[in-house]
């Protein structure tokens, strides 16, 4: 049984039919990438899974348990954490307070402290800047903070929305290395990316979204070789 199963979801913004029957699944331990053009519905899919949007139709289950009936703030207790688009750090809270908010769902002080140490090991820069207000961090540092903050919830499934967006190319590779590292620690990852080449390189499987529908689904390596994907998303002729 897949860990996350999304079955035929339809999500609307007012009258705009944004997701027209998306079905996908993520198995435990996988990295799955969702690629597509702007406005294809990638972020909408993630926000629907995270509970920030409610689908009018369809099912979302985690390990067989229906997720749609839960409000967004309960999903983190079920093991889902998200790194939102544009990072969404709390700009006026310090780095440390941001990490503490990431652990809001947990109460064991000792475990939380151990987790903070783990995040500091993964991102030593965060330890140096722990007292600094998050709004003063650079884009790359904010991405580290947003990722570290999501890990503070000790998620089973991590949803990542455009982690490379707006980052200098030299930082992008570092972010993808980190994603692989986190995955090796046992965290299952569903990744949305515009940088299709990088996203497919690290992914076990990938889905291609077009105007609210899934048009292709294959192993990451296979998708990279797919002619249509190469033309449309990898910029090859």
């Amino acid at each position, binding site marked *: 049984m897949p860990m996350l199963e999304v079955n035929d979801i339809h999500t609307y913004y007012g009258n705009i039919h944004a997701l027209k029957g998306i079905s996908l699944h993520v198995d435990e331990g996988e990295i799955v990438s969702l690629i597509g053009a702007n406005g294809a519905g990638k972020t909408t899919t993630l926000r629907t899974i*995270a509970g920030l949007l409610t689908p009018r139709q369809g099912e979302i289950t985690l390990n067989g348990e229906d997720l749609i009936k839960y409000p967004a*703030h309960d999903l*983190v207790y079920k093991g889902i954490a998200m790194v*939102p688009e544009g990072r969404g750090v*709390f*700009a006026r809270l310090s780095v440390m307070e941001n990490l*503490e908010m990431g652990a809001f*769902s947990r109460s064991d002080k000792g475990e939380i402290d151990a987790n903070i140490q783990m995040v500091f090991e993964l991102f030593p820069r965060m330890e140096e800047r722990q007292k600094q207000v998050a709004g003063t961090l650079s884009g790359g540092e904010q991405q580290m903070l947003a990722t570290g*903050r999501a890990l503070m919830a000790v998620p089973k499934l991590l949803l990542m929305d455009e982690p490379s967006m707006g980052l200098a190319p030299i930082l992008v590779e570092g972010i993808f290395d980190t994603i692989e590292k986190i995955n090796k620690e046992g965290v299952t990852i569903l990744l949305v990316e515009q940088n299709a080449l990088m996203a497919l390189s690290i992914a076990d499987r990938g889905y291609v979204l077009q105007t609210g529908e899934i048009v292709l689904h294959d192993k990451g390596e296979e998708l990279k070789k797919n002619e249509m994907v190469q033309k449309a998303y990898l910029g090859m002729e």
Partner: protein
Amino acid sequence: MTRSKDFDFVGLFLWVFRAVILILIVWGTYATIADNPYETRTWVDFIIFGLAQGSMYALIAIGYTLVYGVLFMINFAHGEFFMAGILTTTVVITTPLSESGFLNEQPILSLLIIAISSMAVSIFISVLTERIAYRPLRKAPRLVPLITAIGASYFWQNYFRGLFGSGIKPIPQIEILDGTIPLDFLGTTMLKSHVLVIVTTIVMLIALNFFIMKTKTGKAIRAVAEDKDVANLMGINVDQTISITFATGAAMAGIAGVLYSLVFRQVHFFMGFIPGIKAFTAAVLGGIGSLPGAAVGGLLLGMFESVGPSLFLRGLGIPAFNQLKDVIAFTMLVMVLIFRPQGIVGEVLSEKKA
């Protein structure tokens, strides 16, 4: 075409407006000082009363600023939360306690009971108002909850008028608060009730600062103020956190109500209106959304109201200058809105919040 090259009539008008106000203040102050109508101790008394009055404004202003911080909404019903707590407590608790003699046998215990009761009623009314009148409008345009708040304000005023009658209710004598303590180094004395007001305010502000800055719930309030969706992803129950925010502001207003009743010795159903508007002015003055701003704005407004009429209005030869403290308060509001909309300690609001 750039605007800066045009002759800017509005800019000129504002500049003249600012200059006229400044000249009036300086001229009035100079005339008063030259005339020297009061002794030093009278000035000190003005300042002490200003501090006491300003403390109450500061406590009430906290509620405006907290709610604005999380919802970007001016909760015009906040003055009624202030009224509801102390009016109910006076009728239901203070008066019976006084009649039974318990109030003066156990004054400290009685004051504690009064404070807790006033806070509890204020909190209850505020959470109820938020749940029924504001929460369903969370996604409505900004103007809608604002108008609803004005409606809620009238609703509570008339509800409590119906419940307890429209008469003025005197606050019974509390003997330990009678009299003054000497301030020898300033050559004056200070009313014990004013001491209580200032000390209580300091304690409450320190407690509030600890709650907002250091506790998990306080940090969650700040997280919700910044980004509700992301706070949601962290597992923070946004609706519940907003209720807690209203409750925190109302607790401060409840305490302010007790202090108000001890200084002015009377309560009535309409008592929330003017302090509410003044505290809103104080919150804007300090920078709405900022907690230190609310405290600073409240104290400054109280001081200006207390010292201002005698200092610069008297010198201008205005006949009933002591009646004009409200003019000073609202002139300050207009000046701040024109020249420094972000307030004294406020930051420039980002596009999202503006």
